């Protein structure tokens, strides 16, 4: 009987709870999306939501399937970097809503070095990381030494960097549209190497960005969980005063961790723009959603670097799947609706876990009482 009582139920494990909570969020998000489709036009709703979930499987030809899978992966890499940026800062007790701005800074720096200065890809990548890190470090500095809430300073910096980058990239604009020139047309040496991945997935924008993103992800996991510095970061996040009392440099930790978070988001932008998948529209009036979606991916992945890989992929999977809906009835933004509902639901995760634990405790109590 004693042995029975000490065995933990599976549901009690934090990992299982996180996974379960994330799945509940996803299901609720899809449900809201489905209801929206039903309201708009009931006749094609089921087909549309299946198209969103299937994404590339919706195509019959294998080469088209591969191509769309490749496209999804291309957009997954930057999102994964942004979500790492958010979760890394969160572990140090900071809410990095500035991932969006750091992403913008990275995009600006990488494209400026590629299109105007004609540098090779590794220089552009570094420049993007430095630009993001600088922006992050400013927020970190203001938080550590000037008592400015990082959420507020990040929001200001998001917009400052958007307008700065628009000005910086204006000379590199292609006169025929509102976007910058493609990297391939101006400076092919700045394109990320593909190492044959493009042929493998039948999509020319697939580059080393994807394996690189996974590597960075593992590196961040190791840094956070297996190193002294990572321990200090997490300790600062859990209790700033206790960390300071234990002799950790709390102010330094805040600045360095924001700089790392910024570098990650900047790197993410370089991964997208140096693969020529997209160009920068120099007249855009709002901060790209990638950084904000990074917040979604980070929380959906249970604030775990490995979980972030799956959540980032999932979000891009349904975003790309949005293109499959019948445009005569619905619009592709239905995917945005689904993913934003998922983020909203993620804010209830803590409560869900609390609820699960309470129920489990009650049940255990009940059992004990019955046996005695």
């Amino acid at each position, binding site marked *: 009987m004693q042995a029975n009582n000490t065995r933990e139920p599976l549901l009690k494990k934090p990992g299982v709870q996180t996974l379960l909570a994330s799945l509940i969020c996803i299901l609720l998000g899809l449900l809201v999306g489905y209801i929206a489709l039903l309201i*708009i036009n009931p006749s094609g709703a089921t087909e549309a939501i299946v198209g969103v979930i299937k994404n590339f499987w919706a195509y019959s030809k294998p080469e088209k399937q591969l191509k769309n899978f490749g496209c999804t992966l291309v957009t997954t890499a930057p999102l994964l970097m942004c979500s790492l940026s958010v979760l890394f800062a969160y572990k140090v007790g900071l809410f990095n809503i500035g991932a969006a701005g750091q992403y913008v800074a990275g995009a600006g720096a990488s494209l400026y070095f590629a299109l105007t200065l004609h540098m090779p890809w590794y220089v552009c990548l570094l420049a993007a990381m430095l630009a993001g890190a600088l922006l992050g470090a400013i927020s970190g500095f203001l938080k550590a030494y000037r008592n400015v809430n990082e959420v507020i300073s990040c*929001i*200001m910096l998001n*917009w400052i960097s958007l307008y700065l980058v628009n000005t910086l990239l204006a000379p590199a604009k292609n006169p025929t549209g509102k976007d910058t020139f493609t990297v391939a047309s101006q400076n092919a040496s700045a394109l990320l190497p593909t190492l044959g991945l493009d042929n493998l997935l039948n999509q020319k924008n697939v580059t080393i960005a994807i394996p690189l993103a996974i590597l960075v992800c593992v590196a961040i996991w190791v840094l956070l969980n297996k190193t002294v510095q990572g321990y200090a970061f997490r300790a600062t996040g859990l209790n700033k005063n206790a960390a300071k009392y234990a002799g950790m440099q709390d102010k330094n930790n805040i600045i360095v961790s924001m700089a790392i978070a910024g570098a990650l988001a900047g790197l993410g932008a370089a991964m997208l723009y140096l693969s020529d998948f997209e160009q920068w529209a120099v007249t855009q009036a709002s901060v790209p959603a990638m950084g904000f*979606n990074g917040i979604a991916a980070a929380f959906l992945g249970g604030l775990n670097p490995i979980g972030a890989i799956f959540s980032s992929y999932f979000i891009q999977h349904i975003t790309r799947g949005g293109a499959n809906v019948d445009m005569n009835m619905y619009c592709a933004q239905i995917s*945005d609706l689904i*993913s934003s509902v998922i*983020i909203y639901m*993620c*804010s209830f995760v803590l409560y869900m876990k609390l609820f699960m634990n309470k129920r489990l405790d009650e049940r255990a109590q009940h059992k004990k009482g019955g046996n005695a």
Partner: protein
Amino acid sequence: MLLLLQYTLIFTSVLMLVALGGCFSEHSGVINIGLEGIMVFGALGGALVMKYMPADTAPLVMICITVLAAMLTGILYSLLLAVAAINFNADQTLVGTAMNLLGTAAATVIVKAINTSADSSNPSSEIMYVGPKKSFIIAEGTEFSWFMLLALALLILSYIVLYKTKFGLRLMACGEHPQAADSVGINVYRMRYAGVMISGLLGGLGGLVYITAGVSAWKFENGVAGFGFLALAVMIFGSWKPQRIALAALLFGLFRSLSNVYTGFDFLKNLNLPSTVYNMLPYIISLVVLAFFSKNSAAPKAEGIPYDKGSR
């Protein structure tokens, strides 16, 4: 010059309304990052009313119904924040971010659904309201609208409510020290609901004013282009006080309109600055001000912390 004045006043009205909304929410203890999303929904409510009202409606009726619709949709949307933050102790920054993304996404889906069902070859997210918009204008041919007077009235009302009524003082107590407020019999949860809903009301109205500023159609894909965040900056710059928020809104509104009309001034044109500089300036100013004055910040002490009856 007249053009600059018009734009400054209209942008000031928008920023002031939304920032006052944020002020009520934060004084009750709930951080409202989701103002941007609330604005989009308020704008959507107003725009839909303008679209479906008969064209020969009397201007006064038109104004009243549109304003009420915008306020109501704003309040309804703000309930998303209230429920999550007050009843479920959710992370308020996360909820706000989700609301901003959801606002634009949902509004786009709704408007596109309406447009495509009317004409399947028209998948745009635009609503036109050329006729109804005329009823908001005081003097034909200008942009001086009744909204400016309404914003002024609401500013005065906000000041009185916040500082001169029992309700306002109790609201602020909940944002400073909710446990103390609770100990004297104030229902903290109810007060916070009130704060968030007032922010929904003012934010929704601000959204409506924004989409009627200088244009007669709005593409909902674009959201409100960061005005909710700018209003947040106005609120902080105005150190959470209505009278200072009004001045901050005036300053930020001036810069914002300069970016639109600076080419009309010879000396500004000769400076040869790109228009992005004027867009950037309000944010830079607020960041610098924050850096110097945040040591003794006027922010409500308990904002962002979910209220837990059991904690001390």
